[in-house]
C-alpha cells in the first residue's frame, strides 16, 4: 500500500466511512501487527469453536437449524435482533463490530460494501450455495462492483393490505391507497414507518420511480404525504394488531405481514399495486471484522443447505427463490398469490436501491412526515 492510497483510507476512516477494524486491516496496520508477531484476530482457522453472532430480524430464523449447527460444529449461535436495515446500519456505522453475519436487504448491501463493513464472499467456503439455482435478478442484488458480497436468503414484495369487509370500493392501485385514505377511509389507513417504502409509494402515486431522488419529484411526494398524514391512523411497522382488531382497514405493508394476517382472517387481502412498488430480497453477508469468520462461513453454508432452508422457510414464511428448495416445498406454496404473485404483477416492481436509502432529502421528508 503506497502513501497515497493510505491517505485515502485515513480520510475514509476519519469520515467514519469505514470501521476502525476495517481501517486497521486495510491500511496495513494489521500487517504491521503481523510483523510484530500479532496474529490478526480475523485469520481463518480450520478448527471451529466459540460463538458466532448473527444479526437478523425477529422471527426470521429457525431455531432448529441453529441447534443442529451447534450440535455439528460445537459453535454456539448468538442472535441479535434488529427492527430495520437502517438500525442495523446505524449500529455498524457507530462502531459495533461484534456481528459475524448480518441479514440485510438488497438496498443496504452497496452501503455495507462501500463502507468496508463487509467483503466479497469466498464462495469456496460456501459449497451449499448455488448461484445457478437462484433467480438471476436476486443474485445480481447481492453483488457489488462485480463481486458477490451476499447470498440470498428470501424475498418478498411491498404492497397494500386491506380488510375487504371494511374497504368496499375496488382497490388495485397506489392511487386507491392515498385517495382512499384521504377520502372514505380517513382515519383507517396505516403507512409504514419505513422511508424507502413510504416515500417510494408517494412517488409512485405521481408516476415517478419508486427510487427517485429527484428534488422536484420528492417535493410532490412530500406534499402528498403531509396531506395524507392527518387522515392516517398510524405510521408504524407494527400494524398487524390494528388490522386484525379492525382499528385500521388499509395498510401499506410487506408480503409476509399479509401472509400472517390472511392466514388468520381470510377477509384480509394483499394487493400489489398496478403502478408497481417494491420487490425486496434479504441476504446473508459476512462482516469484514467479525470475531469468528470461519464459523460465520460454516453457519451460512449450513443454512443454505436446501433441506435446512426448507426449515428456514417454515420459520420466516417468506418466498425463497432457490429452485432446490422449491422442489422440496409443497406445490401449493409456489402458487400462493401472496408469496409468489403472478409475473405481470411483479414486473412493474422495483428493487429499492442504496441511493434511495441513503438520500438525505428522502430521509428528511420521512422525518418531516412523521413529525407533522
Amino acid at each position, binding site marked *: 500500500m503506497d502513501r497515497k492510497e493510505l491517505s485515502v483510507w485515513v480520510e475514509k476512516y476519519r469520515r467514519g466511512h469505514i470501521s476502525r*477494524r476495517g481501517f486497521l486491516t486495510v491500511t496495513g496496520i494489521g500487517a504491521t501487527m503481523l510483523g510484530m508477531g500479532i496474529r490478526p484476530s480475523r485469520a481463518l482457522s480450520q478448527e471451529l469453536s466459540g460463538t458466532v453472532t448473527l444479526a437478523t430480524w425477529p422471527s426470521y430464523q429457525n431455531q432448529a437449524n441453529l441447534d443442529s449447527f451447534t450440535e455439528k460444529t460445537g459453535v454456539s449461535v448468538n442472535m441479535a435482533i434488529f*427492527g430495520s436495515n437502517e438500525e442495523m446500519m446505524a449500529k455498524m456505522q457507530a462502531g459495533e463490530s461484534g456481528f459475524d453475519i448480518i441479514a440485510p436487504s438488497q438496498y443496504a448491501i452497496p452501503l455495507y460494501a462501500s463502507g468496508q463493513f463487509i467483503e466479497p464472499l469466498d464462495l469456496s467456503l460456501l459449497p451449499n450455495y448455488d448461484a445457478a439455482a437462484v433467480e438471476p435478478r436476486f443474485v445480481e442484488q447481492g453483488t457489488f462492483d462485480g463481486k458477490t458480497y451476499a447470498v440470498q436468503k428470501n424475498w418478498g414484495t411491498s404492497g397494500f393490505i386491506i380488510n375487504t369487509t371494511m374497504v368496499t370500493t375496488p382497490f388495485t392501485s397506489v392511487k386507491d391507497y392515498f385517495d382512499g385514505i384521504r377520502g372514505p377511509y380517513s382515519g383507517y389507513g396505516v403507512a409504514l414507518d419505513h422511508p424507502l417504502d413510504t416515500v417510494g409509494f408517494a412517488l409512485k402515486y405521481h408516476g415517478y420511480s419508486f427510487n427517485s431522488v429527484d428534488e422536484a419529484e420528492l417535493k410532490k411526494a412530500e406534499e402528498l404525504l403531509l396531506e395524507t398524514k392527518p387522515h392516517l391512523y398510524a405510521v408504524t411497522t407494527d400494524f398487524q*394488531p390494528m388490522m386484525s382488531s379492525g382499528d385500521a382497514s388499509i395498510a401499506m405493508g410487506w408480503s409476509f405481514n399479509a401472509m400472517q394476517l390472511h392466514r388468520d382472517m381470510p377477509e384480509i387481502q394483499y394487493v400489489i399495486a398496478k403502478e408497481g412498488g417494491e420487490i425486496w430480497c434479504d441476504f446473508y453477508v459476512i462482516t469484514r471484522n467479525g470475531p469468528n469468520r470461519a464459523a460465520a462461513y460454516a453457519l451460512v453454508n449450513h443454512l443454505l443447505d436446501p433441506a435446512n432452508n426448507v426449515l428456514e422457510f417454515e420459520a420466516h414464511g417468506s418466498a425463497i427463490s432457490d429452485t432446490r428448495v422449491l422442489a422440496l416445498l409443497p406445490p401449493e406454496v409456489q402458487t400462493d398469490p401472496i408469496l409468489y404473485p403472478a409475473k405481470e404483477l411483479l414486473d412493474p416492481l422495483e428493487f429499492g436501491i442504496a441511493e434511495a436509502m441513503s438520500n438525505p432529502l428522502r430521509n428528511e421528508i420521512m422525518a418531516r412526515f412523521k413529525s407533522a
Partner: protein
Amino acid sequence: MRAFSLFIFLFLYLPVAVIVVFSFNAAPNMSAFTGLSLRWYAKAFSNPLAIAALTNSIVIALCSAVVSTAIGSAVAIGLMGTSRTTRIVVQSLMMLGLAVPGIVIGLASLVFFSAAFSGAEQAVAMLAGWEQAAKLFSFGRPTVIAAHSLFCTALVVEVISLRLRQLNPSWLEASNDLYAGRGETLWRVVVPFIVPAMVAGGLLSFVLSFDEFIIAFFVSGTKPTLPVYMFASVKRGATPELNAIATSMLTISILVSVVAFSFLRRGQARA
C-alpha cells in the same frame, strides 16, 4: 382516599393482568381469548434467545444496582463534606445524568466507547505486543452496566441525599463525642441511617436498569437484554410468547422480593 388508592392500584395492575391472562391464551395472537394453554410458556422456555436475554438482563440489573448503590451512597455522603461549588457541580452533573435522554447517552456512549476501546487496544498492541489486544474490549454486559450505572447512581444520590437531609448533625457530634472517629461514625451512624434509602435506591436501580431499553440497545453489543429483544420482536408483530416471558419475570420477581423482604424483616428484628 382509600377508594382512590384502590382505583390507582387497579390502574397499575390492569396491564399486568392483561399480560398474565393472555400468557395462558390458546389463540395464536392477542386478539381474543380462546382458551387456556401453556403453549407460550413452552415456546418461551425453549427459545434460547429469550432465555439468554432474560439472564443477561438480570445480571446487568443486579450489577447496575450494586455498583450504583455503592457509588451513589459514597457520593451522597461525600457531598456532605465538600465545598458548595463541588456539591453544586456534582449534583448538577448527576441531574444531567438523569436528564440526558437515553437515546443520546446510548448512541454517544457507543461512539465514545468504540473510540476509547480502539485507542486502548492499539496502545496495548503496540506497547505490549500482545496479540489478543485487538479483542481486549468489546461491547457487552460491562458497557451496559457502566451506562446504566450513570442514571441509577444519579437516582441513588438523589434518594440518599434526601435522607441525609434528615440526618441530625448532632448525631455525628454525639458519635464523635463517644470516641468514634469520623470513619467509624460514618460506618456506625451515617450508613445505618441511610440503609433504608440505599435499599430503596438499589431496588429502584434494579428495576430501572432491568427495564431500560434504548441505552442497552446501543451498547449491549451482540448480547441483547430482554427489553431490546422484546422491542425487536414487537416491531414485527408480537406473539403471546412475550406475555409468557413477562409473566415468568413477574413470578420470579415476586418470589425474589418476598424472600428479600422476609430477610430484611428478620434482620430488622435482630437489630
